């Protein structure tokens, strides 16, 4: 026990002497929240489009009014008006506008005589997300022109769907918080634990403790525990700050905190032991650098933090089944947004526990006690 504590203390003291690393480990995930939240917005807005009205008739004016209503209401796009069709299309090609709406000169006439009126929509289809959103909202704007009269609300013979939210509303920023916490844990586990072993090896310092009677479990266990204590503190700070920033309430107090703590601890242990299995024999920090981006992508994106796992193709779903981050995200979402207690997330906890146990065992067995 004394030996294990010595390994832990050595590691913690070294970390404490590098306050910059500690500060960055907290700041970076929070910056993720800000940048991810703003660059990956749930709703699109302010997409620039251009409108050319060759018609100037009563119906074309109504189309433009409807477009303006969207511009000032949902704000999906902002409208520029041009006379020159070529200039407008060149603008779309040059990326100045996302789309050009062309209303031909006989539009109003064709509407009134009901002879297949048409409006041209030229879109920059290389930007799939924007073009799809613009197409949908403009289609909506045009469709309402056909309805000459205000329709009667709730016709008796029609079927209506009523949505009922089971939980308190979760806005886009809030929905990112579990992912950001997982990201903080990932970063923490990558820069502590086995990474310190890789650095010692790189600097040739590992020789000094390989020469002592420390066992494999002392070395692996000690590094995992020191990594755990650092990472849980980082994760707790990141979680607290992001909850305050996005206004997620702690509705159930202590019980909720305990559940969060358990999930964060088990997730950290899972990732620390996983890193040990992957990086246990690496002797150059550059290899960790190369792998870090890769591991982050393959663990984080299929975790359900940004996109629902149900929509993944089968092979990716299979991967998500063994991805500890997927279980962590599921558990954190349940605790933060659904007020779940430990019993409801038992499956996630069981998986993370077994995963940690298996990975730690493999790490200890595969750890090389000689040079």
């Amino acid at each position, binding site marked *: 026990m*004394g*030996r294990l*504590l*010595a*390994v832990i*203390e*050595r590691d913690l*003291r*070294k970390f404490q*002497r*590098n306050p910059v690393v500690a500060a960055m480990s907290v700041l970076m995930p929070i910056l993720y929240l800000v940048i991810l939240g703003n660059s990956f917005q749930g709703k699109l807005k302010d997409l620039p489009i251009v409108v050319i009205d060759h018609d100037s008739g009563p119906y074309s004016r109504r189309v433009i009014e409807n477009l303006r209503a969207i511009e000032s209401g949902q704000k999906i796009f902002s409208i520029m008006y041009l006379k020159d069709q070529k200039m407008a299309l060149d603008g779309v090609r040059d990326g100045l506008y996302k789309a050009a709406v062309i209303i031909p000169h006989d539009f109003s006439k064709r509407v009134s005589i009901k002879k297949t009126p048409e409006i041209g929509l030229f879109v920059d289809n290389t930007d799939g997300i924007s073009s799809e959103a613009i197409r949908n909202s403009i289609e909506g704007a045009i469709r309402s022109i056909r309805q000459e009269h205000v329709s009667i609300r709730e016709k008796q013979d029609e079927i209506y769907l009523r949505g009922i939210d089971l939980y308190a509303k979760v806005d886009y920023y809030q929905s990112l918080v579990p992912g950001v916490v997982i990201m903080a844990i990932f970063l923490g586990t990558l820069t502590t634990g086995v990474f310190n072993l890789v650095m010692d*090896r*790189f600097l*040739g*310092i590992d*020789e*000094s*403790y*390989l*020469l*002592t*009677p*420390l*066992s494999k479990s002392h070395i692996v266990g000690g590094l995992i525990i020191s990594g755990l204590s650092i990472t849980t503190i980082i994760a707790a700070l990141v979680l607290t700050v992001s909850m305050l920033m996005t206004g997620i309430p702690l509705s159930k107090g202590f019980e909720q905190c305990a559940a969060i703590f358990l999930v964060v601890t088990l997730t950290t242990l899972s990732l620390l032991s996983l890193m040990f299995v992957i990086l246990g*024999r*690496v*002797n*150059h920090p550059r*290899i960790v650098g190369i792998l870090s981006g890769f591991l982050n992508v393959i663990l984080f994106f299929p975790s359900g933090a940004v996109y629902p796992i149900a929509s993944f193709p089968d092979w990716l779903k299979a991967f998500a089944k063994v991805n500890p981050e997927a279980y962590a995200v599921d558990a954190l979402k349940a605790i933060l947004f659904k007020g779940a207690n430990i019993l409801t997330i038992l499956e996630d906890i069981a998986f993370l526990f077994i995963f940690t146990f298996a990975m730690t065992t493999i790490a200890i067995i595969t750890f*090389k*006690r*000689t*040079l």
Partner: protein
Amino acid sequence: MQKANAIEVNNITKRFGSVTAVDSVSFNVSEGEFFGFLGPNGAGKTTLIRMLTTLLKPTSGSAIVACCDVARQPDAVRREIGVVPQAMTSDLDLTGYENMDIYGRFYGIPMKERKERISYLLEMVGLTNRANDLVAAYSGGMRRRLEIARVLVHRPRMLFLDEPTIGLDPQSRHVVWDFLRKLRDGDSITIFLTTHYMEEAEALCERVAIIDSGRIIAIGSPNELKSQIPGKDIITLAIGNLSENIINAIKGLPFVHKINIEDNIVRVYVDSGAHNLPALIDAVRSAGGNVTSATIHEQSLEDVFIHYTGKTIREEEAKKVSFLTGAGVPLKWGR
């Protein structure tokens, strides 16, 4: 009475792929002896010391160190030995005291005993005043002294040092030498050291094994080794137009025991250099030789190396690229 053996090595061999770093080496070291391994870089010294200290598994052969077989009971061996590897291995982010304290805890030494031992050792290596400074602020010599002190915290019966003074200035080197002598005399620890400095082996070791290309080529006390070379002195002549004729003329002189030639440098083994030099130069001249320089020196271990291998240590080093065996170079991925 014969002293007990502290180290018994039997045909120990280490291969890295097709390279044989240590080739069937056998020797014994007695309890309390100061034993040196002398040889050029890449000769296999570090590989050997790593096998004796449990860091590498031998490909074949065996070694008993302190009490036990290094391959079978590595943990028991680790408890009995202190090892100062060639590379500096103290933690730069920790203070000198913390380095020693944590190391002592790796051995499970109780706190009170640890504290006393550390302050005694820090005093001994003259680092008491700097004990609470980060090692990052230490000079190379201080760091080396700390590392020697550190591996003594658990009172090892044997001390292994791999090139302990490499990279140190002459003054720091002498401080380390004095400290090692004190250790042997005061604490009667068995000391095993490797070096490629002749004068280090000569100054410290009771017995020396000379190693080249993974094999022991000679073993004995420095004096014994030197006595195997004929003559007492060596005259080194640089001869501009060296020829077969001149060489035969030198060999023909009655006082010449042996000669050794490298390029245009001729080493002549004689009993009294000062006495025989004039006659030697005369002989070279009358055979048509042109002596451009002449030096006389007493035999050293360097000459022992030359005697057995026909080349100087420095030349031998220049030839070798020791990427597999050199301690200073990181080994291939995963080691």
